[in-house]
């Protein structure tokens, strides 16, 4: 298993747990228990039942006919946007809330960028009757107002992160500080495949249900269980990790990761971490991250709040360095136009994060026989204001 985590918590050169001693007991508790807990038959049963009855899984693998005709290839969309709460994020929060309960925790904290993970966390906390505190950057609170309201309605306390760039990176810092201050009763539900080991592996495992289902679904429609291409957007990289997970070792499958170029790679306002980043440490993990020559973490930019994270998960950093995945980057404008295209060609309004992935269709050549699976990771309701302002609708 070359592309999965090793016994020390690394993916090649990346990963590990670069944490202050204050977090050591919490992280060790998780590390020593997570595999045992998630492989228990009772846990699996609870997890799968909630995914089925509450989240609405399996999500469809939808053959996008008009898009396929236009690009003369076979395009499938994995409809994670149809999950309860509108994105793939809830696959992970269901898993982690069940884990937290088994660890005896009665308070949940989480960070959120676009608000999707915050909503997914607030939802499972309401479901389980657990206290929930969500950290969100002050700027994100303004640009994702509907999600803030949803979290509050679900009973969560939303705390504004006012430090640094006031976005996802700083919300994560604040959540980590909260965990240092509340080490005994609190579980931190990280929303992406980032952070110290075992988080990247744990989140990837909970999201791997996406590619589990694709295997069965493709077998039914295409008579083989793998596609030629898997394409997903990558901020921290949780939807991509779930899409790739069961195909990492299958060399017939080409993996494409789409990052947010913001206003352009060399504009100074970008979030294309693989190109602009260097090896370093962010939020307890060694990975590729955007930083200046002094090792200070720089502020990323993307029109989509879910992609402006200065790092990528260590699994993705390893896929990049080992060339297992091809990384491409897509500007705000390209992504916004695809938001409109997908709406009008397939009747699906995607999240702006998700819209980034589709731009690959304009830049890469695919054969008519190619089977391409896009992760349609989230729906665009939360982005309506941004779409309205951009297109003057």
């Amino acid at each position, binding site marked *: 298993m070359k592309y999965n985590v090793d016994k020390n918590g690394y993916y090649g050169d990346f990963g*590990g*747990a*670069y*944490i*202050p*001693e*204050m977090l*050591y*007991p919490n992280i060790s508790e998780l590390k020593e228990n997570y595999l045992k807990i998630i492989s228990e038959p009772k846990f699996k049963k609870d997890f799968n039942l909630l995914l089925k009855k509450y989240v609405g899984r399996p999500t469809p693998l939808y053959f996008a006919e008009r898009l396929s005709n236009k690009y003369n290839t076979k395009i499938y969309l994995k409809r994670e946007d149809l999950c309860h709460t509108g994105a793939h994020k809830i696959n992970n929060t269901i898993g982690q809330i069940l884990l937290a309960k088994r660890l005896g925790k009665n308070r949940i904290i989480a960070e959120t960028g676009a608000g999707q993970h915050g909503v997914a966390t607030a939802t499972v906390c309401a479901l389980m009757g657990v206290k929930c505190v969500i950290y969100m950057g002050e700027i994100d609170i303004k640009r994702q107002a509907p999600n803030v309201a949803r979290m509050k309605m679900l009973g969560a306390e939303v705390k504004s992160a006012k*430090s*640094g760039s006031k976005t996802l*990176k700083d919300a994560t*810092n604040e959540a*980590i*500080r909260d965990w*240092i*201050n*509340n*080490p*005994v009763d609190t579980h931190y539900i990280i929303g992406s495949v980032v952070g110290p080991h075992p988080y990247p592996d744990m989140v990837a495992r909970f999201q791997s249900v996406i590619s589990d289902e694709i295997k069965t679904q493709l077998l039914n429609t295409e008579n083989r269980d793998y596609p030629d291409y898997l394409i997903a957007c990558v901020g921290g990289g949780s939807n991509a990790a779930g899409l790739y997970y069961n195909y990492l070792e299958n060399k017939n499958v080409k993996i494409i990761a789409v990052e947010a170029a913001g206003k352009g790679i060399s504009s100074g306002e970008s979030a294309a971490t693989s190109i602009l980043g*260097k090896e*370093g*440490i*962010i*939020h*307890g993990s060694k990975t590729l991250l955007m*930083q200046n*020559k*002094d*090792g*200070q*973490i*720089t502020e990323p930019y993307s029109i989509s709040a879910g992609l402006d994270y200065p790092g990528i998960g260590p699994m993705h950093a390893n896929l990049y360095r080992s060339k297992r995945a091809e990384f491409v980057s897509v500007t705000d404008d390209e992504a916004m136009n695809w938001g409109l295209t997908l709406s009008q060609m397939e009747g699906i309004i995607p999240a702006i994060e998700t819209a980034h992935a589709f731009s690959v269709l304009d830049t890469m050549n695919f054969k008519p026989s190619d089977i391409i699976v896009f992760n349609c990771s989230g729906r665009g309701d939360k982005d309506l204001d941004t779409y309205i302002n951009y297109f003057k609708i």
Partner: protein
Amino acid sequence: MNRIDQIFLTKEKLLSIYFTAGYPNLNDTIPILKKLQEAGVDIIEIGLPFSDPLADGPTIQESSKIALNNGMNSEKLFNQLKNVRNEIDVPLVIMGYFNPILQYGVDSFCYNANKVGIDGLIIPDLPLDVYTNKYEKIFKKHNLHNMFLITPQTSEKRIKLIDDISKGFIYMVSNSSITGAKGTIDQSQLNYFKRISSLNLKTPQLIGFGISNFETYNNAINYSSGAIIGSAFIEFVKKEGINNIEKFIEKITKK
């Protein structure tokens, strides 16, 4: 002998002060060091600012941000400290997060630290196992102590492991918390202080985080070799500037 070991042999109930290099002004590093030495401080921790100080409260977050805006970085700090040992005899420690040190190059960083007369480093997010596997040799080559943290949650087994590897002192975090003044020490903290004290560790302990005034300082030194003050000192500098630092120290040590 390393100056840190020397001071523990010759003095009891130490006072260590942390400040952020480059705050309030870029070139305040040497003037602050001189004032702290004159005021009788026993060990000084020079904070290398970082953009994302995970273990720090609002005070050190703010001072770090201002220091970075002032242009502080590793190279400038080493330049400022080039001749520090002509004037300062107090043991000096650099405290900073790992990423800036990693980008500078751990070996170059340690080489330069030793060259200017730094006695040790505190890197909160450099874990013990990574240190022993990868960096311990480099620290030793450059005669630098690496100080580790323990907290109320640290198991006794791990405390003993840390004690084995530690040089200089163990940084005993007073509470399950990020840095910042709270003004009091409660009973559960005192129980923790007593528990650690009764372990009779080979490495002396300094208690830090939440130590801010005469009361908290005195509570801490009753159970340890001394205490560390950071945020409360930075708050003082923010209000009073750097000219009357001795007044702050007097208030801590004499009622």
